[in-house]
Each structure stands twice: as C-alpha cells, then as structure tokens.
C-alpha cells in the first residue's frame, strides 16, 4: 500500500501507524500551520453533513491529519445525525476512490488493495476472476450483504453465479461494502475518548455545532395518535437512525393517507443519514401517485408489516388490519 493509498483511505490501520511513527501529538494541533488542516476538516464535515461528498485530495500527510481532525470534531460536536451523515459521506468518498482503483491499477496492486480493505476490515475475501476483468466473492458472503439491497438486479438469481462464487464488476464489488465502510467510520468516532481539546479545534467544533444543531432540534414530532408501527418509524427517523426502505414506504404512505402535505412528509425524512431532499421529494410524490406510474400507493397491511418485522402492535391496535384504521375502529 503506497502513501497515495493512505491519502485516499485514511481509515486504514496503516494511516494510524504513520501518525504514531511520525510522533504526532495533540499539542501540535495548536500550531499556527495547523489552521489549514482544521479549515479543511471543518469543510469536510460541513460537506458531509449536507449529504454530499468531499472530493478534494491532497498529499497523504495532509489527508491523514484532516481525517483525524474531522473525526475528533465530529465526536466533539456530539450530534448523532451529523455523525451518521458524516460517516456515510466518508464511505461514499472512499467508495469512489476504490472503484477508480479497481478499474485502473494493475492486478498485483488490486490484490493488495483487496487484501487490505476487504479482507482486513470487513472479513470479505475477494478474488480477481479468471478472466481478469471481474471479481468473485463467495455466495454466502455476497448474500450477507446484498440481501438488504432492494433493487431486483441484486437478487442472487440475477447475478452471474458459478461454482460457489458470485461474479461482480468493480462498481458492484465496492457497492457491496458501502454500508460497512460507513459503519467502520461511525464506530471509529463512537470508540474515541477525547482528552481536553486543543483550543483551536474546540472553537471550530463549537461553531459547527451551533450552525448544525438547529437543523435537528424541532424534530421530535408529536407522535401520540399514530399507530405503534408508524410511531416507531417516526422515532427512529427523528433520532437520525437508518430506517429500512420498507419502513420508509410505510411512513410516507401512512402520512399521505392521513392527509399530511408532501412538504411536511419530506421534512420527516431529513434526519435520515442518506437524506437528499430532491430524491425524497420525488419518492414521496411517486407514492402519492403524482409522478411516474401515477399509481397511488396504499399503506401496507398489518400482515405485510408483521412479515417484515415492522409491526409493534399494542392492545390499542384492537384487531385492525391496516395501520390507517388505528383509532378509527373504537366503539
């Protein structure tokens, strides 16, 4: 692994080793020439929290430091949805580099990259396929990751499967670990214990918190009269935690059914770690029958929700068969 790789993948253990070997210490963050690093880290977090990918790439010394300082600042900001969004954005950044590298570098380099990133970090063994163009993973390893993707083309039956392996191209291989990359960054921040922060970082982190916090304040909507399944989804969403696609569909169709305006529904999703207003708006409008097929989607039945483990029935549900009936069926 070259130093250029450490710049692109600063979450690798080697990046940490580099820092240790160079004898880098906390106090150095107070040095005036660190201001540039702190500026970059601030920008990196802002871009990530805004749902975008930070795309500047500098020398590895700068990248590794920027990454570490970003982690420290995100930890210090202490807002869960900011951390989630930041982690996802870092994952997407690494994903872009990985895809390029898998496509461009020679086979030996590719193998070492896999060994490092996929095998060390995610316990996922990947080989270059016999023809040198595709990559192969064990069927069970593939399934453990792909079964949570919703697109039909990720179903095993639509993949090239042969002798216990699934064959994938570079983009697909990397897509397979996106979620794990994001969890890796998230866990790194969670596991940190911060000493007293250098003033230079503390000031900037406080500023960032003040700027980002209002986005996440209102947000505990009054959820008392919703059925328990919807209530649960709203709660999860407002905490900025990830909600499965099927639960999002339930939440949106329910809100449409009770007559909530599209604008308000879109805003209910804004704490989602992968929130993108344009996409969410299109999806909600699609469910409302305003876009695409013009089919108005109904709220999934209680039975369907039970099958998808999205049902949290209470006595108040009183035998309803669809969440929209909640509260209406009272005698």
């Amino acid at each position, binding site marked *: 692994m070259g130093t250029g790789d450490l710049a692109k993948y600063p979450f690798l253990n080697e990046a940490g080793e580099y820092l240790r070997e160079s004898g880098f210490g906390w106090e150095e963050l107070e040095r005036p020439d660190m201001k540039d690093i702190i500026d970059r880290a601030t920008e990196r977090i802002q871009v990530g929290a805004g749902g975008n990918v930070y795309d500047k790439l500098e020398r590895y010394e700068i990248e590794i430091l920027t990454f570490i300082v970003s982690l420290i600042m995100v930890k210090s900001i202490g807002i869960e949805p900011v951390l989630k969004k930041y982690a996802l954005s870092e994952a997407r950044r690494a994903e872009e580099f990985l895809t390029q590298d898998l496509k461009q570098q020679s086979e030996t380099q590719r193998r070492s990259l896999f060994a490092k990133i996929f095998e060390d970090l995610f316990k996922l063994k990947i080989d270059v396929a016999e023809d040198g163009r595709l990559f192969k993973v064990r069927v*069970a390893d593939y399934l453990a990751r792909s*079964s949570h993707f919703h697109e039909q083309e990720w179903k095993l*039956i639509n993949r090239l499967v042969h002798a216990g392996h699934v064959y994938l191209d570079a983009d697909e291989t990397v897509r397979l670990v996106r979620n794990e990359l994001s969890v890796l960054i998230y866990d790194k921040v969670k596991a940190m214990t911060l000493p007293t922060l250098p003033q230079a970082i503390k000031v900037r982190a406080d500023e960032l918190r003040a700027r980002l916090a209002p986005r996440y304040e209102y947000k505990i909507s009054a959820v008392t009269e919703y059925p328990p399944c919807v209530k649960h989804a709203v709660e999860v969403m407002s905490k900025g935690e990830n909600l499965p696609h099927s639960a999002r569909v339930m939440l949106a169709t329910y809100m449409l059914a009770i007559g909530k305006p599209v604008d308000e529904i879109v805003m209910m999703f804004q704490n989602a770690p992968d929130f993108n207003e344009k996409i969410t708006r299109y999806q909600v409008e699609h469910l409302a029958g305003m876009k695409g097929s013009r089919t108005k989607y109904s709220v999934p039945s209680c039975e369907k929700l039970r099958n998808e483990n999205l049902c949290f029935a209470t006595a108040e549900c009183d035998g309803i068969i669809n969440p929209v009936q909640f509260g209406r069926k009272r005698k």
Partner: protein
Amino acid sequence: MIQAVKTIPVVKGAFREYYFKQAKGVEEPEKIEQREFGYAQFGQLGMTRHLSFGSIKELHAMLVKEVPSDVYCSNAYYRSPTLPMQEKQWTGADLIFDIDGKDLDLPCVPSHTYPICISCGHASTFDEKKEYSCPLCGGKKADHVSIPCSKCIEGSKKEVKRLVEFLTGDLGMQRENIRVYFSGNNGFHIHITDNEYVPLDPQARSDVVGYLSGTGLMAESVGVRRGREENMSFIKFPRGGIEYGWRGRIADKLKIDSSSIIKLKHLVDQKGGYAGFKAELDRMAKEMGVRIDLQVTTDVHRIFRMPGTLNSKSGLAKTRCTDLESFNPFNDACLLGANKVSVRVKTHVKLKLKGESFNISKESAELPAFAAVYLICKGLAESL
C-alpha cells in the same frame, strides 16, 4: 387430524416400543447444547417448546418417558435455548429445505386422496368433480389425507436431485455437506452442514430460495432490455456474459450464446416483445427451478422434525437417505413392530408397507402394527 381417544393407546404403544428399542436411531444434532427442542404429545393440542438437552442420552430418556407424538429440534443455535424467544440470543442456524410431495401437483394425487369429514370423522373416496358432502352426516368440510404412492415419492426425489444439482453446481457446496432425509410422511428434508450459510438472516435465505426456485429472474439478466417505448426491447448482454448459472441455463434452453444478438431479438419479437418474453422467461424459470417451501427455509427460529424420530402423520420415521435412488420410504422408514392389531378401517384402501401389500375392503381387519398405525395416523382406521 381427528384421533379418537381409544386409538391413542395402540399408536402410543407402538411408538413407545420403537423409542425403547431403537432410540439410538435418533440422530444427535451438532452442538446439541445450543439447540432448542420441542415435542407434541398424543391427545394434546399444542407443543412443549424451549427445552434443552445437554446430551443425546438425556433426549433418549425423555423419548422413552414421555413417548411424544412428534419431536422437533431447532436448526438454530442459541446462547440460552430455554429462554423465551426474545432472550435466547440467536447465533446462527443451519440452512434447511423442505420438499413436500403435496406441493408438486402430481396427477396421481386424487386417486389416493381420502376426505375425512370434520364433523363425524367418516372417511370416503375422493371425487374431484363433486363438491364435498359427507355421505354419513352431510357435513361440508373435510380434511383431505393422502396415502402417497411410489409416483409421489419419485416426484419428490426428482426435486431433491434437482436441488442437489443446484447446490453442488451453482452454489459450489460439497456433496458431503448436504444431508437428505425422508420427512416421515410425503416429502424430503435437506439439511446443509456448510457453516458458511449459518449466519445468514431470513432475507438472505429467502434470496437463496428465490434462486433455487427460479423466482424473480429479470429479462435483463439474459440480455433483453426494455426499450424506451412501451413493450419495445433491445439486446445487450450483461458484462459477465451468459455462460453460467441461471443465465447459462436459460441460454442453453433458448440455444443462444453471447454472440446471438439477432437470434435473441428474433425470439423476443416472436413472443410479442419485452412483456411477452418476460412472461415466457418466468414460466421457463419456474419449470426449471426446484419446488421448495419458502417458509421453512426462511424461518430461522423454527423447530424442525428430528432425524430418527417418528412422524405422527404416518408412524414412519424421518430417515436419512444415504442412497436416494434406492431409498424406499415404505420399507426403509417403516420401523414399527409387526404384532397384530385389530382395527376398523373406514374406507377401502390400498397400501404397501415393508414389502407387504394391503388391499382392505372389509371393515374390520387384523393388521401388523406398522400398517395399523399407519392407517390410524392417517385417520383412515380406528382400533377396535
């Protein structure tokens, strides 16, 4: 199943003798201490679950003491198998498949199906064309029991062979990691001992079933893509080619390879465009896939019939098939004793067990225990 109280002692007696003499035939599951067990008892509704046995000897002792009608063991592994489901701490589950003869829609089935009236228990012969009405009490509802014939078993075996081909071929499993069992009634259970699949969640298992049963194959996977206009299509083969797996299977069937763009386009047009081709593809994939029960494979908390125990729907044992070809459940899984039992047979039945053919048309008959129990379990006889 209706089981008159007076028939219970006969069946239970035969089961007791089996467990007393042949409890060793009950196969010890791997990591027995991490499994949940359960059993049902004669004449009682429901099941006793959340049990744990430290060793196979403890389990044998329970079998002899309780003489259960059916015995089950989880395919899942738990840290605490005896706690309620939410607290058990699931750590993984063996991959299992269920092939049930009754799901295969075989043409022979009506000829050996017997409706048994829900209200009076009267058994009669089956008439497909007529709506059921009990000849004795006029009741309109019936349980339909089937005495599987050799064609049924052959049909199920064919599915098992196809499944094994998929598993060893596409999924690359070792044959020795695939254990085939006769279910004890009218089908086969396949247990996979490949640890790679143990951690998979229900969704991933459902994806495996989709693959094996040929469900959800996209036309795009074999190179047929939707055009911009309604029902228009164009051909672009996927990057990995169409040589292997389902793509290869369909390509073989259509006699195409990755150079057959024009031929495939022609085939699509013949089927009336994208939608027509997709419908044809669905039909082909379903026919080439294996008919397995989705529920059984995806339920990772299920307790599943234990190998070597008796099935109260037939009195036959769930039996390992080391050689599927020569396996004959009516001999190899019929393990009860042969002492004579007097029974009242409810309708005219034919069956063959342990090489002996029975064609019973008179009401009362004296039969060897294995045959008497079989008919009683099916609800077609009562002990006298």
